[in-house]
């Protein structure tokens, strides 16, 4: 299994946290919130496609609503493989950052 890229990780986390409400607009906001900056539409939606193709998330259609000009939403859901990939990523992160806390950086500065 391939490692997730930073952006993929971010998107996956956003989807995971949003649970049943994970569709385009909400995901974009969540990504902005946890990622700390705004991503382009193009970049984000390419990532959706990639993740879908890799089988980490699945999509299903919601009901059309008038706010969206009568267009349906696409909701995303994390698959089992997706969870596994996230777990992998988490383990990697903990490995990489093992034994490091804010204190360690402060020591280096002084």
């Amino acid at each position: 299994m391939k490692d997730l890229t930073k952006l993929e990780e971010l998107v996956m986390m956003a989807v995971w946290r949003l649970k049943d409400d994970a569709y385009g607009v909400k995901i974009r906001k969540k990504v902005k919130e946890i990622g700390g900056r705004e991503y382009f539409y193009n970049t984000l939606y390419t990532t959706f496609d990639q993740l879908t193709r890799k089988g980490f998330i699945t999509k299903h259609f919601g009901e059309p609503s008038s706010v969206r000009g009568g267009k349906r939403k696409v909701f995303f859901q994390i698959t089992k493989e997706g969870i596994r990939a996230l777990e992998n990523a988490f383990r990697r992160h903990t490995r990489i950052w093992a034994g490091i806390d804010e204190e360690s950086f402060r020591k280096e500065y002084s």
Partner: protein
Amino acid sequence: MDTKKSRIPRIPYWLLQHICSFDNVDAFSGDIEEEFAEIHKCQGRARAVRWIWFHAIAAIPQWGKNSVIWSINMVKNYLKIALRNFFRHKGYTFINTAGLAIGIACCIMIMLWVQDELSYDRFHENADDLYVATFSNGSTVTPTALSPYLKAEYPEVIHSSRYAMQGRNLLKYKDKDIYQEGGVMVDPDFLKMFTIPFLEGDPETALNNPFAILLSKKVSQKLFGTSDPLGQTLTLLTFNMRLAMKVTGVFEDYPSNSHMNFQYILSNVGMARQRNYTTWEYNNIRTYVQLRKNTPVQSVDAKISDVVERHRPQDKRAMCLQPITRVHLNPMYQDGGTILYVYLFSILAFFILLIACINFINLTTARSSNRAKEVGIRKTVGACRIHLVRQFFGESLLLTLIASALAVGLVYLFLPMFNNLTGKSFTWELLFQRMIVLGIMGIIFLTMLMAGSYPSLLLSRFQPVKVLKGKQMTSMKGALFRRILVVLQFSLSVFLILGTLMVFRQVHYLRERDVGYDQDNIVYFNIGTRFIKNIETIKTEWLSHSNILGVTLMDIAPYSWMSNAGYGDVHWEGKTNQQVKMVMTSVDYDYLDTFGLKMAQGRFFSKQHSTDASDAYVINEAAVREMEMDDPIGKELRVWDLKKRIIGVVEDYHFESLHNKIIPMAMRIDPRWYYQACVKISSHNIPGALGFLENKWKEIYPEYPFEYRFLDETIQNQYRAEQAIGKIVTVFTILALFISCLGILGLSSYTAEQRTKEIGIRKVLGATVSSIVKHISREFVVLVVIANVIIWPLAYFIINRWLERFAYRISIGWWSFVLTGVGVLAVSLLTVSRQILRAATANPVDSLRYE
């Protein structure tokens, strides 16, 4: 919420939808709309608009990168496959490219010609405001008083000039003299109206002096060489005058794409001062005017329509202003105008291109099964139909580009020949004009569209399941379509051949038709008053030479009459209310004998009757017919304002070209109007007679060279327009037939190839070679026959319309049609027979071995 205000700006929205790669566009757009609406609500429209633009523009770089990488990859593949196909089927590629190259080359040359024709007189800066006064019958010959009158009376007219052609004159400077044609006499306004770049001198004042002359660069170099001509005095000799003229300017040689044509310009200031120069009495010069910018010409036309009639009530023709840019194209003008030929040639060029495109379509679709597997594979690995359409369009574009490159080469090679045919002088550099380059691009695009559309749609329609399973894709529909195209091709070819045949027959007919007078061995030349005064001595002296058979004077020799120069108003004894228009000509006593005319009634002018010089008309039969006179002899007749008695009726003869019907004419004796002399010489010793004439001429006009022409040559020249057109059309026709034959050559060789096995089986079962050839060639014969039958009525109709331009014309005759049909059939049979014969004579063992 106000729906209109909350609407998403269309451009960035469209951009986002189309360049972002997201599987579900609908949901994607929905997301954008939702977020846009939210921002709009919270932060205002300006923010929201900025937001969507930001995202749209940010998406571009990524998209650009993706599409370029992929398209380069695909184009490389397309190109490779296309070239492989081209090289594998060299024969078909050759037929396609050769046909297209010839077609495009024809189009380019025609485009050069058409563009040249349409460019006439456009180079004048004021071209849109310049007009020539024209009578309702197309004549531009107007009274001298018209020009100053128009300028004085109508504020819309800001400049006006008379334009009097001077013909040939002798220009003398020191010991040099040249006999120069192309002199015109104009008003000083002329230089303000027309764009004539000066090399030396001041255009403001150049023509203000009564004896000012402006020379073209060419004439100036001939006379003065490298020395400065400005301010020099040269002598201008006409037959009747000797004038000292001062050179006040030198202008750039006047371009040939103008209906005007002059080499030197004389001021008419001196002439205009003479009282009898400005008159309404008769028409003898052209009148040009310049209107104030943006004046609607109709409003001026309405005011001036009766301007001549007001001053000369007998001339009822309406006057109007004709834009100078249309004069050259106008069919009423001189050589018949060229607008008709502009249309004709454009259509011809299009036909040829169409025929070449049909070849491409036929050969590509006929061999479509060869490409079917490729299409199947491409579709299986994910190509959409649009990709395949693009691929095949690309292939036709590639072939068109190769053909265009060849075509440009062909144009380069054949341009001198084309110049020869058209009498123009196109240069290779002209191809790089902006208009022509755009035109060539247009032709390439059109060709690609015509040739590529059907094959690409057909080929991209194949269903991968079927073609990969090996089902044959040669549908009946495709074959029918090809047959229709072949019929169309041959219809066009037959039509062109019939057209050419008719042009040639008509021209031949005109040349051979009896003009009603003797035109052989007659020379004619211009004369002046010195000649006319001494005419009696000249006649006795010249006629004493054994090879001179007749000498006579007249205003204009028979060939060159232009009846639209003006008709007289006619009155006669017993006139009821017929409207008869009549032209008048001044002749000499020996006119009848010199031209071998015959009298129908009465007698010709004779010196024995002293009244003949002042009180006698001889009219032609056409005049008698139109005036419905039972017994014309002795009746009084008034033409213009001259009342004389009719003494005779001459049999009709063609004093105009055969384009026109013989119209009523009256002859009179009037030495004041003699401008030309005709001399009939014996056919035994033409050089001797001419030498004698030249010597005698030198005695009368020592300063002038003896310049003469043969009447019959001039008459033949009248049909040179038709002859030139005939030649060009012939070339086109041959090319069209050639390309059509290339097409069926390709188709027949393909058919033969496809049916190798069928032929093999037929032979095994006992068919003879001849029966096989008959069987296969019948297919093509039927098509050619259908093409003939379809096009005949249309061709008949169009040819008939063309022939109506001629007063005297051939009858079309069914045999031309049959002959053309049989000819085309023979040529096409000859083309296909070789391929079919080869297939038919092949040993069936070879073709059936692999079953």
